[in-house]
């Protein structure tokens, strides 16, 4: 289990323990975090799990794939340098305490 801290667009912050190997999207959905939809079930096909990862830790993540970058061009909320698709971030012990901010819209 690794702790991920989600910041909903309302400002509400929730720290939850997510099973290693799960995606940040799955951790959010299972724990009822508002603001992540994950319409395609984590297939990197829909761009409804857009999130902003804390900038100082961006380099700890596997870089986005070509298809993730393509989908990020089409997210509903503002795209920022720290935009990622939560379904493509695998939770692992080294990410303990990662801050993930959620946009106010996904569709």
């Amino acid at each position, binding site marked *: 289990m690794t702790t991920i801290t989600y910041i909903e667009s309302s400002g509400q912050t929730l720290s939850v323990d997510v099973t290693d190997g799960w995606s940040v999207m799955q951790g959010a*959905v299972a724990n009822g975090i508002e603001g992540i939809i994950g319409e395609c079930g984590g297939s990197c096909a829909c761009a409804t799990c857009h999130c902003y990862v804390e900038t100082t830790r961006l380099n700890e993540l596997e870089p986005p794939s070509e298809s993730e970058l*393509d989908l990020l061009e089409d997210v509903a909320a503002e795209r920022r340098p720290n935009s990622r698709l939560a379904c493509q971030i695998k939770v692992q012990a080294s990410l303990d305490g990662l801050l993930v901010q959620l946009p106010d819209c996904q569709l």
Partner: protein
Amino acid sequence: MKSPENIVIVGAGQAGLQTAEALRSLGYAGPLTLLGDEPHPPYHRPPLSKAWLAEAMDAAQLMMRSPDVLARKHISLRTGVRVTAIEPDTRRLMLANAEPLSYSTLVLATGASPRRPSFELPSTQAANILSLYRMGDASNIAQRMRFCLEHDLPVVVIGGGFIGLEVAAAARKKGLAVTLLEASPRLLSRSLAPFTSDWFEALHRRHGVQLLLETQVRAIEAGPHPELHQVVLHDGGVYPAGLVVIGIGAQANDTLARKAGLDCECGVIVDANGRTSHPDIYAAGDCTVRRLADGTLLRLESVQNAVEQGKSVAAAILGQNKPSNTTPWFWSDQYDVKLQMAGLSMGADHWETHGDPTSGSFSVHHFKQGQLIAVDSVNASKEHLQARKWLEGK
């Protein structure tokens, strides 16, 4: 319009859940019940033929919402409940093994079921002849694949549609011997351009699938021992199989609606807002068939359609107009290839290929009388998103 007092949704899949959540986010605060006949809370179906078969995820990862989330939204989820009849006049649902349930507004999101084959099957139910629609089906297939791997038994997939091809890819990834039988002259012929079909045929052959096109199955017969059946073709070919997966399409679950007197034709007929022929009853997702402006019927089986119709239905119930009319899109994952399709390709008469297919990333544009109607994108998400915008007229 009278506001609804008590909304019941039959079916706890993508469309049912979407309808429930959309009702809440649009401000409906009354009683809301979601009935599912499976034992599980709502889960994602698309991974079933992909990561789930690869046994790369656990059941909790498939779940769409935790029970807590539904409880917080005051969505009353009842799993393992089967509806046996709708009584539109008394606005009641008859349930198997439970008291009848009253509603003021009903939503049917009953999904679809694998189409039954017309060829002959063994007289007794065989544990190694399976179809894939639900989580239980996928688990049985995964388990059976393990068994085949341990005992070195081949797999036969009947049907070269999305399910069949994804199952074949998953089986090959595990190292199983796979034969795929398709009745038509090319794969995915109803969706893809001929060029894309040929590209996928080559892809599967390259990955070691024995692929037979234009083959008609005559029967699945008992084999030399209980763990082995044999698929017999009309041309006399015989293919032994430790597992047969039948993926020849799905049919809408419209029996409840038909028995209740709703207009149905291979699905519950709805308008763009998800209204059925009965004023108290709406429908969304795979169980529906949509009556278009020109009178023709359109049946879509996709996550996107389930999500959109769910939202349309929620809006319509609350007296708002939010028709489903965006460009349909679909996707499929096979091996390391992501196929994305935008638009509907029926009636295409001309195709253009863009990009370099030998690089593994390309797209094919479908035209009908000079008009772009659909785009297949292979490992080309950007082109897919662009195509969706073009087709939306943006």
